[in-house]
């Protein structure tokens, strides 16, 4: 795969370090699909990339974003001594997974305003996706967005790796990103940005598909496409297990 990347660069021309040349970037993931099987407990992904016109001041930012999901965030309030979920707010199309890896800490690469403008980084992404909710909400949605970020970080679904991108010789770079045990299924997009003077001057994206496989896939699809039949199947299996136990232990 690295060979292919290098080849594509060679076709474009010899990598040179001239600052006046328009910068460009190519990237590929080590996996195109990740399968979640019964023994899935997370997986390490590596993204390889190559740049043209990389100068010493340039930095690389890699974002891996999972499929959007609709969320309901509720604030717990004490009612009669117990904590009850109340004051719900609905959010649409919030990334179920968001990991960012950078060659320098993100705040040293670009200003918060510049990142917000280009929608790079978790706070910027959440703010953009939550705009419809903010428009119709009658209260400050920031605590809710913070709660989404906290929940994601708790499950390692939102992650930030400062210096997670390693710049190698000859304009090559490598980023490693880890998928946690709770990785949601769906279509992922990896975006790679080349930053110069605090602005993204080139970008490239690659896609990744996470899907259930094997027994996981079979059970999940069965349970969701034919739920009633699946329920019957569960009952039959349980009765059978009970019958076997009866035969094994109760027969005299």
């Amino acid at each position, binding site marked *: 795969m690295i060979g292919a990347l290098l080849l594509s660069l060679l076709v474009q021309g010899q990598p040179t370090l001239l600052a006046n040349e328009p910068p460009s970037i190519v990237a590929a993931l080590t996996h195109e699909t990740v399968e979640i099987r019964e023994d899935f407990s997370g997986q390490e992904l590596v993204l390889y990339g190559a740049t043209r016109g990389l100068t010493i001041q340039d930095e690389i930012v890699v974002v891996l974003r999972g499929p959007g999901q609709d969320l309901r965030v509720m604030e717990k309030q004490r009612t009669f001594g117990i904590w009850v979920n109340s004051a719900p707010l609905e959010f649409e199309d919030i990334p179920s997974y968001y990991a960012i890896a950078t060659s320098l800490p993100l705040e040293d690469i670009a200003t918060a305003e510049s990142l917000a403008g280009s929608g790079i980084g978790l706070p910027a992404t959440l703010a953009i996706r939550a705009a419809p909710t903010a428009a119709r909400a009658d209260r400050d949605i920031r605590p809710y967005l913070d709660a989404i970020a906290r929940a994601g970080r708790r499950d390692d679904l939102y992650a930030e790796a400062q210096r997670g991108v390693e710049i190698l010789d000859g304009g090559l770079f490598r980023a490693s990103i880890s998928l946690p045990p709770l990785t949601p299924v769906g279509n992922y997009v990896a975006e790679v940005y080349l930053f110069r003077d605090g602005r993204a001057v080139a970008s490239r994206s690659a896609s990744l598909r996470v899907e*259930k496989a094997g027994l996981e896939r079979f059970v999940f699809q069965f349970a969701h496409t034919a739920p009633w039949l699946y329920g019957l199947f569960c009952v039959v299996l349980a009765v059978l297990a*009970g019958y076997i136990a009866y035969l094994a232990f109760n027969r005299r």
Partner: protein
Amino acid sequence: MQVYLPIAEISVDVFLLLGLGTFVGFLSGMFGVGGGFLMTPLLFFIGIPPAVAVSTQANQIVASSASGALAHWKRKTLDLKMGLLLLAGGSIGSILGVQLFAYLRSLGQIDLFISLSYVGFLGVIGGLMFLESVRAILQRRSGGKGVGGNRRKRGWIDRLPFKMRFPQSGLYISVIPPLAIGLLVGTLAAIMGVGGGFVMVPAMIYILRMPTNVVVGTSLFQILFVTALTTVLQAGQNQTVDVVLAMLLIVGGVIGAQFGARAGRHIKAEELRALLAFMVVAVCLKLGWDLVVTPADLFEVLAQDGSAH
């Protein structure tokens, strides 16, 4: 060895689940209780989403009650007519319970509701069991005999209409109390993932006055069919039954129950019953504490279908 549960969508250690199944199976074999009321909270504690824990537990009880019900069926120690009546009430209760479950889930309140139900039921049951076993231990120490023999008349039960004859139990009573008991137990199966034997058996003995030799078989018969119906309804309507989780618990439970039944024959019942009561109360207090203590995060993020993030 980790296993990824397809419906609960978390990764759990296989041996932890087998161990839990064996442990609760051991207790249920020893005390003749279903064990659902202990297993479900234990599943919460290891991180299974409550909605999945409750529905999957109903599926597990199908297996444990099936082998017991078969044994009683063979020995003819069950009152089929009474069982069918309890089952009719139980089916209505299960259907209502699953609707309530789906509605509360859509509101994002199902976890709280399950916890509250457990705190209430475990508190009452654990407390009663504890008092009962303390009394039994004290009585044995003082060499006194059991209370027994103070069978009062049924009173208001005898005045209810729609009477029916139950030859196997030697009863002639109204159909309303069995239907109501079945309804309550069916609702419990749907919202708490328990068979409900701990409610039904005392109710059959003290309210219906059924002879004790058919009580357990009849209650297992009702539990088998009500939990089977609940499993199908939960799977069909809420998609919360995890067959992989259920099978691991069943395997552990079957093995544990055999050892438990054997151990139960050799050990003093009262002390162990007090221990079980203590555990029930401990689980109740832990669930209750979690409801009252200020949570680590004052916000809860739920997927739009109501399950936890």
